């Protein structure tokens, strides 16, 4: 579930560096771009790319997984942030921590955009998980960033095991009367805290056993580790890398020129008014990998 499975697709056959470059490109866009229209266009291009690659359902599951957290951001932001000129509601009772409630259109919009951004970032991480083979990535990056590569690879491999463990713990807690499905948020949060605590302790114990197994097979013993498979750049890797470098440069130009301007406070900007030709062009260029993927699929 939600992990790399061999599907022998265009993106999966790419060199790990090329796969990672695409993912980082999207990450850059989802983190730096402010106009919701650009963000939606970029997200649509990811969904389209995943559709052609045959993993659309999986990436949407990632979105579903993070949705409650995004919802929390959407709800909390207007309650906590009182800035903004367009007041939608103003209360008179002083609550502890948050003070008197003052909900503004700007805070609502900022909350929505932040929630959407969290969903998109999660989706793109999930997409990376589905298109980059963790072992290939581990073998390649091990030469440069030894321990981090191992950590990254093992995290990806252990994800299904952790998910299974999470399910089992939730089942055990339910059968012990834990208030996981209680109507009160506090009870629910406390119960899920217990689940996370058990999951953390179990994962820690498991990792100690795994580390011993690695140690007894000589991991970290030699300074130079050899590689069973050699990764070579293919023609399509070169195409993707050149494409990505061009887009990176274009995005930097776009940001430097101030075309990313979109203000929420004191009054939220109209996203349609802030649209620029360069922004639209960048978004359209993001559909090129989808076209390459489609072309490869048709003519392979």
């Amino acid at each position, binding site marked *: 579930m939600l*992990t*790399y*499975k*061999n599907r022998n697709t265009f993106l999966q056959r790419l060199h790990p560096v090329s796969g990672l470059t695409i993912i980082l490109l999207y990450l850059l866009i989802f983190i730096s771009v402010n106009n919701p229209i650009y963000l939606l266009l970029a997200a649509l291009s990811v969904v389209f790319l995943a559709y052609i690659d045959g993993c659309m359902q999986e990436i949407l599951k990632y979105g579903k997984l993070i949705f409650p957290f995004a919802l929390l951001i959407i709800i909390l932001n207007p309650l906590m942030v009182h800035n903004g000129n367009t007041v939608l509601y103003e209360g008179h009772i002083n609550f502890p921590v948050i003070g008197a409630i003052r909900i503004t259109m700007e805070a609502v919009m900022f909350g929505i955009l932040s929630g959407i951004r969290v969903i998109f970032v999660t989706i793109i991480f999930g997409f990376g998980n589905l298109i980059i*083979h*963790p*072992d290939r990535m*581990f*073998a390649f990056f091990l030469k440069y960033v030894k321990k981090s590569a191992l950590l990254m*690879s*093992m995290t*990806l*491999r252990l994800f*299904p*095991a952790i998910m299974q*463990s999470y399910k*089992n*713990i939730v*089942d*055990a807690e*339910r*059968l*012990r*009367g*834990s*208030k996981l*499905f209680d109507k009160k948020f506090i009870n629910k949060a406390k119960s899920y805290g*217990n*689940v996370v*605590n*058990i999951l953390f*302790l*179990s994962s820690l*114990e*498991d990792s100690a*056993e*795994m580390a*011993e*197994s*690695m*140690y*007894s*097979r*000589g*991991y*970290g*013993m*030699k300074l*130079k*580790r*050899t*590689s*069973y*498979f*050699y990764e070579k750049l293919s023609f399509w890797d070169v195409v993707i890398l050149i494409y990505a470098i061009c887009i990176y440069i274009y995005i930097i130009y776009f940001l430097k020129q101030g075309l990313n301007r979109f203000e929420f406070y004191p009054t939220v900007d109209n996203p349609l008014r802030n649209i620029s030709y360069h922004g639209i062009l960048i978004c359209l260029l993001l559909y090129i990998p989808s076209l390459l993927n489609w072309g490869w699929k048709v003519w392979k």
Partner: protein
Amino acid sequence: MEVINIQDVTYWYPDCNNRAIEDINLKINEGELVLITGPSGCGKSTLIRLINRVIPDYYGGKIKGNVYLNGRDIVSLKMDEIIKNVGMVYQHPEKQIILQDVEREIAFGLENLGFDVNKMKRNVCEVISLLALNFVKNRQTTELSGGEKQRVAIASVVSMNPEIILFDEPISQLDPIGAEEVINSIKKLNRDFGKTILLVEQRLDKCFDIADRIIFMEKGKIIAEGTPNKIPKEIKSRYHLPNITYIFNQAGENFLPVNVKQAREAIKDRTFSKPDIVKKSFNESILEVEKLSFEYEKGLRTLRNINFQLHKGEILCVMGENGAGKSTLFKIIAGLIKDYTGNILISGKNIKKFDIFETIKKIGYLSQNPNDYFGRKTVFEEVSYTLKNIDEFNEKRVKDVLRLFDIDHLKEKNPRDLSGGEKQRVALACTLVADPQILILDEPTRGMDAVAKENLGEIIKKLASQGKSIVLITHDVDFAADYVDTVLIMFGGEVVARGYKDDILCDAIYYSPQISKVFKNKCKVTDSKNAINLILKSKYKDAGEQNEA
């Protein structure tokens, strides 16, 4: 030629005053297959970790004495020299596999040791053929069965071509088929390839007869040595012997068989009276399952038209291959899965009408991994947790349950610091503290030694005598045969057999305990106690006939 020599070794784990092993002296010859056995916590695993210097290098602690590898003091060797000579396979298949591809996983150790690509390719390809892993080599390690994973772990070690391979309970977590596959691989490595093997194991029925030599340990010390056909007289404990050997030993026999074939040979000329089998009669039905069907995915039916009843005081064993639907069936009954069709009635009431608190009072479900339960700081808090959740906390009740499972002396300890058997008992106490009418135990004997199993069996019997109904989902046929009343066999989501254990297990081809196989065509017997009585009686009968003659 002697390849391992352990001289006067005593070891203390860090921050621990007790000796984990004490005054160990052991010599292992080249090409030997040595089995090390003993109860949980006796120091078996610690002992073999001395040989690849994981103890003390990885664990720390204090060590006294010397370990020699091929005549050289292990302290003077570089770690990569040790690793090239000594490989180690661990207990849990999931926790020793690092990578996702089978082929890459097998090459992991070779990459670490800096082998060149050609050598790696050759070793990997040879090991894949040697361990018959061709059919899984293109699959991902997450998709493999337990037995396949364990064989991949063995392959990953064998690819480095070590002369000595250490196995730390390699079959304890596997089902019978997986265990058989792994034991066959170990035999092959020793017999056909001359590898020196040290095997630590508690499931002795599977491996006792393949050993050249057996080391018996207790409380950190080697108490005796023997061979399968020459077991020292002082070795009588259940955890030191395979079940069949233990039975013949208890019956006072001079010849101690170590497998079914030898046992059948030993009794071939004897006649046996009909065993005293008392079939418990059950009156009050507590659980009724009617026309139960379930599918995880549309069109993929996991359970089909299941019908059965469970009675008050009944101990039911549920067996079947992996994926037969056993755990799914009882997760539905425990209220963890909802969207099924059919009816499940407990004491005449449909479980769909129960809220979670009612379910907890009716059904206790113990999952396979006790660690899934432990998040509190002490055993006492852990056992109290369920009662606090259902607002029925009662200190006396918690203490009673702790006493019942003989864990009251552990009440201030962290449950995660306990041994496997103790953890299982704490998890069981957590389940039973709510006083459910039905107790469902999913693979409760996995990883337990013979004594822990015996204790669990006695607890189960005691609970049944108090009117609890127990469901045991297990692959451990021999354990089930000793303690259960009835058996249900599942296959492909259907119930294919249901009845009293003697009727089902004696006629079974595969799901038959070793005892039944020994007495096959002579008399119907499934449990150890009856088997001991039968052998004893037949011995006296034979002696009487000889006197008369």
